[in-house]
């Protein structure tokens, strides 16, 4: 073995040992501490973790495993050959703004402006419509591929799931008993739109 190969095998071994030391600990009562939206924002640098969130991440092997999964998915999609000419989309997230709770919630947009959720009262409940902005850099590809997408709330529950139609929309009945604004408040005020992948 050459010197540099030896060094890289050593680094790989260190990395695997550190990975196991982080992930294979017994952590009684462990659960998912941070939503995908929070982890993805930390990964792409748009929002840093607060000290408490940082602590929660380090202390939870389960949340670390989710972080690992998101990190690897993100890196894989950045490396995929499509990335060269066709922008890849791996998810968008957004927050309920304080002002939007004052009146009945009509819509919410993701931070990147690519997706909007509209809420229409219907009978006793609401109809929720997800629409993709034509300006989104990945719009052409998503429309072409009729990808399956889903919207999850800050607690990870599915708000809506389905394939985009040719107008870049997808809709369904609001699945919860609580009104949209109140519901999002209850679950960390965050939401995310993500591709459904195997």
């Amino acid at each position, binding site marked *: 073995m050459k010197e540099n190969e030896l060094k890289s095998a050593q680094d790989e071994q260190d990395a695997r040992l550190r990975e196991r030391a982080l992930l294979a*600990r017994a952590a009684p009562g462990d659960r998912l501490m941070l939503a995908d939206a929070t982890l993805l924002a930390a990964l792409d640098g748009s929002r840093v973790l607060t000290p408490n969130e940082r602590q929660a991440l380090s202390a939870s092997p389960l949340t670390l495993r989710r972080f690992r999964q998101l990190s690897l998915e993100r890196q894989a999609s950045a490396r995929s050959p499509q990335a060269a000419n066709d922008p890849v989309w791996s998810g968008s997230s957004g927050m309920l703004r304080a002002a939007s709770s004052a009146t009945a919630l009509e819509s919410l947009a993701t931070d990147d402006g690519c997706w909007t959720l509209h809420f229409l009262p219907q009978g006793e409940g609401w109809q929720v419509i997800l629409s993709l902005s034509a300006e989104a850099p990945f719009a052409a590809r998503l429309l072409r591929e009729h990808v399956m997408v889903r919207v999850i709330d800050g607690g990870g529950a599915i708000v809506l799931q389905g394939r985009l139609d040719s107008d870049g929309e997808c809709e369904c009945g609001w699945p919860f008993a609580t009104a949209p604004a109140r519901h999002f408040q209850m679950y960390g005020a965050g939401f995310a739109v993500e591709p459904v992948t195997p």
Partner: protein
Amino acid sequence: MRLPGTRYQEHGWEQVRKLLGHCSLQAFRRLEMHQILDAGQHAALLDCYTDAVAEALRAGARSARAEAEGNSYGDSVYELSLSLLFELQAQPGFWLAFAAAVAAEHARSGAFWLDAAADGVMRKKVNDMYAGLRDKVDADNYIVTTGRDCSPNKIYTYRMLDTAYREIAGLFADWRQHAEQVGAILGRAIEGSPIETRQMKSIGGCKPEWIVRWSESQERYAGSPGPLHTKSKRFASLKNSPDKIAAMLAEIGDYEELSANMDRADDWSGDAGEAALWLEDYWRVIGESEQGEARDEDRILPEPADDGEAGLSDDMPDDSSEGAAGPEPEFKAHDLAVEQSLAGALSLPPRYLELARAAQKAGSWALRILGGESLPIRLAVYQKLLGAADDTYPEAWLDPATGELPTLQQLAALDQISMPTLRKRRNEAIDKLYAANTAPAK
């Protein structure tokens, strides 16, 4: 049944369960089982148990049962058994529950583990432990893969619905024989060949009301109540939630379709370089957070609503007392001649310790943290965290006879310490790694 991330929910599970039961009974004959009555010994006994079962599994790794397919991702029954065994160490609550069940049986009938006639009793307790553990591990795997919440109870419910669908599919396939019950499921009298029986091609095509009516009809046609209608009421609330049933059936169906062409589940031994890739992200995110002055509001998820899970008490007594460990040797063998005679006695190459020590480069992170430990202890740490074989191990670490790290017995003998002492020092060394890892000074 397949769901995102799950590995233990398919046809091979029965064989995994049997193999673990068989190897556990073998292990119990060799362990100091009376220690299971002493709560202070539970952690140490779990260590011994894991080693003994792993050894029994490896010894039988070439048997037909072990080599059979355990799931449709290509994991063998042997691989699944070994990985579930190691999950037990990260979920010691299941071991504690098992110990409590064994202690209760002991109070009734004495040291039943010595009695071959009571093997069935012990096997049942082992089954219960692994049945609970696999659902917990798969619920966690599902969360990691999807980011959505899950619980062992929910996995159990998915499985109940999957089984119900298969039963219904069986009745539909043979509808002439079961015309009355098929009629009860469809909610109408059967005249001629019912079209539904041909239209339902997958679980995604199964209607929730069929599940409810099938369960309802089981008592009349099969003699015992269906899962939604048992006295235990475990699934009783589902009866009135067809939407919930429909969503779960659709999820199983969608994923089965999606994953039909997938060759391998993302298991966590991972590909070369993966650990370094995400750890780099991890240190960066932690570093940015430590430097970031932005004091945003915390977005920590609330605890999910309790889904009525009985819940294992998850605390493992934090026990490091040595108990019956042998006396510590007064000296350490640094003398090469002594090392060589030790190695020779263990059928290792005479210069094993010397060469193995030289094979770890001084710059390694692990060596910085564990530099104070002896080589056998460090190797025991690797064996515990990465397994007996890993492609990053230098040649000089391996026993030429097996191509793997020396066994724990060999390592203890090399270090001239008892097995309990080796385990204790190894666990302390692993704690040092944890501590160094979670307080990164980067």
